[in-house]
């Protein structure tokens, strides 16, 4: 079973969000997501400065098998991108919660994250998924 860090918040669409010390929010995809996708070979990130609303499509990952959309779980401005993913998309497979992060958002309202799932609720939502 996937090992989901307790300090993160999770979306049913398989993204995670982490509140950084400066109050910005980092977004990536979960271990369960990378596991079901298989080897990731291509990533499309949002652009710097994009204004995302919670639930907006913010990018895409393609594995050897198929393409899959990435949604932003939070509302705000994109202020950083993990550019390593362009050359090393396999970081998403090897380290989905750290080196495999996607983008960082300056959120308008941190309380938005309260609507997301805790680690155990997300794990439960994933059972029966496959």
């Amino acid at each position, binding site marked *: 079973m996937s090992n989901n860090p307790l300090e993160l918040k999770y979306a049913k669409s398989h993204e995670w969000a982490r509140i950084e010390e400066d109050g910005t929010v980092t977004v990536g995809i979960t271990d369960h997501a990378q596991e079901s996708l298989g080897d990731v070979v*291509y990533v499309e990130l949002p652009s710097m400065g994009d204004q995302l609303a919670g639930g907006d499509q913010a990018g895409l990952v393609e594995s050897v098998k198929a393409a899959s959309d990435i949604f932003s779980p939070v509302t705000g401005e994109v202020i950083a991108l993990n550019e390593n993913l362009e050359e090393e998309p396999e970081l998403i497979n090897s380290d989905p919660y750290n080196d495999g992060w996607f983008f960082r958002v300056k959120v308008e309202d941190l309380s938005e994250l309260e609507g997301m799932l805790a680690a155990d609720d997300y794990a439960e939502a994933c059972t029966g998924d496959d």
Partner: protein
Amino acid sequence: MSNLKQLPLHAVHQTAGGKFSPFAGYNMPVQYTAGVMAEHLHTRTKAGLFDVSHMGQLKLPLSAVDALEILLPTDIRALPIGRQCYSLLTTESGGVLDDLMIARRQEDYLLVVNASRRDADLEHLGRHIKDVVTIDDRALLALQGPCAEAVLMPLIPDVTHMRFMDVAVVYWQAHEIWISRSGYTGEDGFEISILVSAAEDFTHALLENEDVALCGLGARDSLRMEAGMPLYGHELKEDISPIEAGLSWAIHRSRRATGKFPGEFLGADRILRELDHGAARRRIGLKPQGRAPMRDGVLLYDSPEGSEPIGVITSGGFSPSLRAPIAMALIKSEVDSRATVFGEVRGRRLEAQQVKPLFHQPNYKR
């Protein structure tokens, strides 16, 4: 899920961490724990073991030879005992009903056909041939890769005398095995038909060799794409001629206009005409620029602005060997073979270079 058939070795695949997906009515292992990329590269460097028991195995009597001359553009009478060849079931209108391997054995012909076409093939063959026997008690395994012979030798010493496209009946622990030196990966290797009751033990005997790894349908697809091999439903369809699909070589020279037995097979009018005068479309290989894969169904244009598609991608994905996207496509014949083409991916036109549809040079033992 309930209508999906299980492979006879389903339990082996589950134990090996197989991830399953429906394909041609079967619940097929797409990959195992290592993943498509690792399985692909393992097959290119050592030996991959694929369970392809979903494929149809059919036996025809030798008396079917007259009918087979009509159904296949092959010189079937010239196929020696102990050899097989690749061929096509053509349609009246010059398309392709299925592609297959046909082996000439001592007492019969053995056909291996696509799972997705098995029923259509049976109906078609049944109209021309009596006594088509479907083999339902045998698993089919493919052992593929540069180590395949070395892996198989301790179990079946005779394989060392086989060369590419030879077929033989051999024995392992008194079990009769139908074996051919062939495959669908562009590697040396063997396809092994063995009674379901012995298949699991045989599989374990192969897997004891650390050079052997189970590989799923995902790697099978990326391997055959690199080897430029067509897949039914993609490069081959009832409305695509063998000439368009780049399979002129499968039309035996004796069946061509200048051959000893010209024509007289289904669809010969169109197929021989296209051989002489060219076809409307041709199959090409593509190397997309950048890393974005261009997949099956992506439309091709001659410029970033062009409004009329000039072709369509029939198979596309990521090549683990080249670490880059590759694709195959059908494109209008009048398009210059040096021209850059543009694939429309999610509304954007991305550049791709036309290349020969062969991304990996095969190393068969001829």
